[in-house]
């Protein structure tokens, strides 16, 4: 399928990119793996795109005990997996990046771009011809949601894999815009609105991702439900971070986040209370699994599983991710 007529712009620095974005009706393109299909489907048709990949020196991944992990905006999902520090300290990041699409998409797509993934819905991610059979939905500029009838907003599903992993690790993102820069908790990057899921102004970009240094006795894991072992977006994905203390492996703290469960990656609130101070076991995890089940609210907007099934799978995949996190936490 052909792309719509768009102009191609290139930025050599971040301020230059922000200035071009500020002109209006211009979209940022790094890997292009999310944007280009959307443009082919004509759900996005900007006047121009700015190729960010021409900006030099932004593909770094560094780790130090003092500053933790710093990931530049143009580091790819493949770079993240292949980084030795990330492999040793943050298995959830490796696991989640390795589950994004395919090797080709991981080579092209950036980590920052994956965090900024647009929400998806099978009434939206379709060709204009296919969509012309129905009135346009909220996300495509219309006045209706085809998934949740009579809803007053869009319910498209957030389907990024790395976001919940970064979230449980306590990540922050550095956002730059033409008016300056700010550092926000990753959670604040998401509006929760399916129609405009990423809470950035038109001239703003994620410039860096910051993850705190790995705490002693902590571990992380990510896993997801999908039909095929490659290519597919998650039908339900779970990331768990936990910290153990003492020889008996008592849980000191635990954080759980889900993807494909709502219009934003969501943290499960109060997950720690029920298991804090108890040794890690699947029995002691039961309430955390139950809280995750209650928090997930998948709707019928992606192909592969019914919403009740996907909701039930929140329990299972939180358990599996927690087992992965426990493996790392108790190893040292």
């Amino acid at each position: 399928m052909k792309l719509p007529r768009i102009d191609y712009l290139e930025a050599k620095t971040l301020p230059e990119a922000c200035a071009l974005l500020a002109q209006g009706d211009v979209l940022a393109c790094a890997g292009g793996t999310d944007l280009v299909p959307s443009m082919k489907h004509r759900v996005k048709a900007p006047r121009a795109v700015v190729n960010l990949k021409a900006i030099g020196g932004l593909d770094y991944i560094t780790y130090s005990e003092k500053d933790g992990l710093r990931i530049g905006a143009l580091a790819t999902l493949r770079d993240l997996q292949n980084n030795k520090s990330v492999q040793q300290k943050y298995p959830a990041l490796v696991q989640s990046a390795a589950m994004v699409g395919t090797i080709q998409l991981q080579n092209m797509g950036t980590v920052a771009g994956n965090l900024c993934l647009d929400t998806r819905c099978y009434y939206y991610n379709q060709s204009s011809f296919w969509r012309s059979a129905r009135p346009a939905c909220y996300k495509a500029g219309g006045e209706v949601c085809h998934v949740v009838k009579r809803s007053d907003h869009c319910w498209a599903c957030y389907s990024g894999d790395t976001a919940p992993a970064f979230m449980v690790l306590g990540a922050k993102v550095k956002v730059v815009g033409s008016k300056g820069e700010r550092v926000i908790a990753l959670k604040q990057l998401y509006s929760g609105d399916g129609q405009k899921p990423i809470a950035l102004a038109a001239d703003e970009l994620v410039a860096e991702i910051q993850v705190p240094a790995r705490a002693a006795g902590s571990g992380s894991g990510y896993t997801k439900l999908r039909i095929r072992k490659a290519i597919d977006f998650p039908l339900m994905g779970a990331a768990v971070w936990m910290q153990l203390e003492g020889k008996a492996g008592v849980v000191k703290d635990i954080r759980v986040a889900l993807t494909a469960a709502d219009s934003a990656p969501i943290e499960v609130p109060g997950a720690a209370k029920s298991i804090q101070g108890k040794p890690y076991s699947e029995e002691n995890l039961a309430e955390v699994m139950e809280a995750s089940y209650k928090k997930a609210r998948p709707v019928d907007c992606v192909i592969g599983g019914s919403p009740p099934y996907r909701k039930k799978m929140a329990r299972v995949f939180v358990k599996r991710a927690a087992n992965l996190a426990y493996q790392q936490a108790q190893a040292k």
Partner: protein
Amino acid sequence: MKRALKLTVNDEDYEVLADTHRTLLEVLRDSLGLTGSKEGCGFGACGACTVLLDGKANLACLTLAFSAQGKQITTIEGLAVNGKLHPIQDAAVRYGAIQCGFCTPGWIMSAKALLDEKPKPTELEVKTAISGNLCRCTGYVKIIESIIAASEGK
């Protein structure tokens, strides 16, 4: 809007006039006549358009042609040297890993990226490397066998 586009494909420099909204796949096929890379889905799922950019497997159907300037692009046409097939191509023929042939250029490029990085991959690594290349004919078994054979020089 047409602009001058400079690409380096298979160690040869090309300069063509191209619209700014063309994908790398369109330019390779329609402007340069390199029709080895195929358009399957056009949306980044099937891998039929896989080419190497600076040695890494990329999808030409999702790459804006202008963003590939300054990179070393390798397509299936660049593998054979003086009419002699690349070992992966040769093994593909001998093991019957080609049926209709539409996915073949894509997975061979994925396999080349893998073997360049890891000359002796395990079966799982081969499967992972070509997991982004859909084939509806072979059932993958012969593809995997042929890549392993190529890595072992058989």
